[in-house]
């Protein structure tokens, strides 16, 4: 198990370099001079633009730019944004907010999704099951920004139960509404996954054996049915954790949350190489770790899976 984990962690190194270089290349290839665009129609003198370009190595070829970034990176310096702010500071303010939002959303979708999915799976074809299917279909088909705007208008503007947007400190209670919006689509998927998996497992041999052994119904359902049904759900949650952590541009925009998604979006639009690459590098690490976590959880959930040397 340890060996396996170590091997997986070592694999991160080439992934990291490959991903950062690829992203740098893509940002570098964006059309247009980012510095000239910063000023819009109010063009400063060419001399000023040239100096600012030189300051960010934008007058250098791609490899030199990437080299400068990597030298800084290895010394713990992630570079600066075009406004002169250290990228590390930007990360330190954006990631905790997104992490809180992601954890809250993950909690909502996991708890509610598994619960509803389990009940629906146990009562297949009954009223609860049918309604769960209809509701989840609805959530999947309605775009997030519609759900976001509607929830914001109803709960924020009309009822006044929640703050319309999230303030700078992004306390948990203000994040509940955006987390619900963010969780809505994944919640629907989890309901469907759990339901299908539970109803499959109900007919499995090991469940029949357990029941025949004389185990109580709650024990059969929780230990034998649910535990085995969670394997696909956990896979989904792991991937979802990754995508939640890298931010949600739409939801962040609606609720004015200063998170990862919006920051990266703005940086891409500005052509801000160091910011985009640093954020993406962290995202890559998060994704790899989330996948590793999922793989390790398999072993815990399904007794048939063991990681040998």
């Amino acid at each position, binding site marked *: 198990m340890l060996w396996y984990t170590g091997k997986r962690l070592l694999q991160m190194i080439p992934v990291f370099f490959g991903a950062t270089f690829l992203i740098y290349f893509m940002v570098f290839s964006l059309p247009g001079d980012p510095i*000239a665009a910063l000023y819009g129609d109010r063009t400063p003198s060419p001399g000023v633009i040239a100096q600012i370009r030189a300051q960010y190595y934008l007058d250098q070829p791609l490899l030199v730019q990437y080299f400068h970034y990597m030298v800084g990176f290895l010394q713990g310096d992630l570079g600066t944004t075009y406004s002169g702010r250290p990228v590390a500071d930007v990360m330190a303010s954006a990631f905790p907010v997104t992490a809180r939002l992601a954890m809250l959303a993950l909690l909502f979708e996991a708890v509610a999704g598994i619960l509803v999915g389990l009940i629906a799976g146990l009562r297949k074809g009954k009223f609860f099951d049918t309604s769960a299917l209809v509701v989840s279909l609805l959530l999947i088909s309605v775009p997030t920004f519609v759900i976001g705007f509607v929830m914001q208008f109803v709960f924020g503007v009309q009822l006044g139960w929640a703050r319309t*947007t999230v303030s700078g400190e992004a306390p948990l209670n203000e994040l509940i509404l955006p987390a619900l919006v963010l969780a809505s689509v994944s919640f629907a998927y989890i309901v469907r996954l759990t339901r299908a998996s539970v109803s499959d497992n109900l007919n499995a041999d090991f469940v029949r054996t357990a029941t025949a052994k004389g185990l109580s119904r709650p024990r059969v359902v929780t230990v034998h049915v649910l535990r085995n049904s969670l394997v696909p759900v956990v896979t989904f949650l792991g991937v979802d954790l990754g995508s939640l952590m890298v931010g949600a541009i739409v939801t962040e925009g609606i609720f004015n949350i200063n998170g990862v998604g919006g920051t990266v979006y703005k940086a891409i639009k500005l052509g801000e190489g160091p910011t985009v690459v640093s954020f993406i590098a962290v995202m890559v690490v998060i994704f790899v770790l989330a996948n590793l976590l999922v793989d390790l959880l398999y072993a815990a959930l399904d007794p048939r899976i063991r990681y040998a040397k």
Partner: protein
Amino acid sequence: MKINRLGIVAISLAAVGALTLSGCAAGTEKAAAPKGDSKAIITTNGSEPQNPLIPTNTAETGGGKVVTSVFAGLVSYTGKGELENEVAKSIESDDAKNWTVTLEDGWKFSNDEPVTAKSFVDAWNYGALFSNAQGSSYFFDDIAGFSYDADSELTGLKVIDDKTFTVELVAPEADWPLRLGYAAYSPLPEVAFEDMAAFGENPIGNGPYMLKGEGAWEHDVKIDLVTNPAYDGVRKPANGGLSIVFYDTQDAAYADVQGGNLDVLDAVPDSAFETYEADFPERSVNQPAAIFQALNMPYYLKHWSGKEGELRRAAISMSIDRQEITDVIFQGTRTPATDFTSPVIDGYSDKLKGAEVLEYNEKEAKKLWAEADDISPYTGTFDIAYNADGGHQAWVDAVANSIKNTLGIKAVGKAYPTFAAALDDRDAKKLTGATRAGWQADYPSLFNFLAPLYQTGAGSNKEGYSSAEFDGLLKEGSSASSVEEATAKYQEAQEVLLKDLPTLPLWYSNVTGVWADTVDNVVFGWDSVPLYTDITKK
């Protein structure tokens, strides 16, 4: 207040002989005691400043809002765009080339350092110095000693004593004082020059507001300002401070005004154009702003130059139904253009000679286009370049359709992913058709709408328009001895533009704003920013 107010017309005092621009002592008479809570903080929308808050490096609206609140220059503008003296006691000149600036007594920065002639001269020198790479350095290019490509001191600036300095311009400019209300001309305290980057994080100014302590600027979140007790100028706040909250989308800000989290919003999102007046009865504004929008024409391409091009440019202009597009696409939040400036600027005119070319006229457009076709038939597609990330698609398509339906030619919008990409093609002279263009005035003057865009070799004259007649009239206007005379010359210069049509004026952007019922006295100024200092909270 009236006694302090110095209209732009004051420059016409020059008729007596000497050019004089002086007002009565600022701060000798106070405004009536404000109603409402003078401690209350007003919340308003903004965006993260693009640069550290250094006045000479802040040209965008996000930072501009903060800088004009935190600093006070020699003069400031009233809501109507008239000049009022702030730190200046007088700005005088005999020949419009050599100016003497005298400062009012008693001005201090919020760190108690007195505002002296040196505070201005040092700040302007810093802003102009080549190696400081300040975005607004070009504002100093008419002061003697300025250089665009090497470090050089502004030799035209001389400190006489603590309260006086002189300015020598490269050439006479009668309305030079008009621009001094722009943020780039703010004074800086000595502490700024020790570490400009750190100063930009926590600027110390002499304006109506100051930062609420160290770290009042929470990046990407908001900036908190409180009233500056040391300030005693004409913009004395009637409230306790200003909290500028940064939004990435105007929709979120709009929801916040509706939800009671924001007091004043100065830009209604497109999605609410139809409803904002109903959502905020009696608490909304929709008035012209100093923003001019146009289509730059490819007068250097085949078919678009010479006599043929002149006919075609006029035909295109007359085939655009500006009124209908502003009504339908913009729900009346744009005003069709009749000149090259803006209705909020003194000297704006809807009666320029040749302005009929800006009116929709199907018959005349077809006729001119046919005449051009007689010279050389046109078979191509007329495209209009725009950046797709700026919400321009709807109106560009509407304009293209209007041209297509009127002239029966192929006309389409050509989207570039970002503004940078569009700029690239423009600079590489790879454009094949018209380009959308916009201009927002830095200071309320006709000159600021004309010189930077159409003067030969000017910084933002990217497509290289050059007309000796226009340049000459502009020069005559800027060295005229009275405002009336200058205005007349600037209007004549625009008539040259109407003939040449290097750009087709489309419309003026309106400022659309709403405010919550918690605040009163919300008035939007000529620069589309609310006059924050006047706002009171119940």
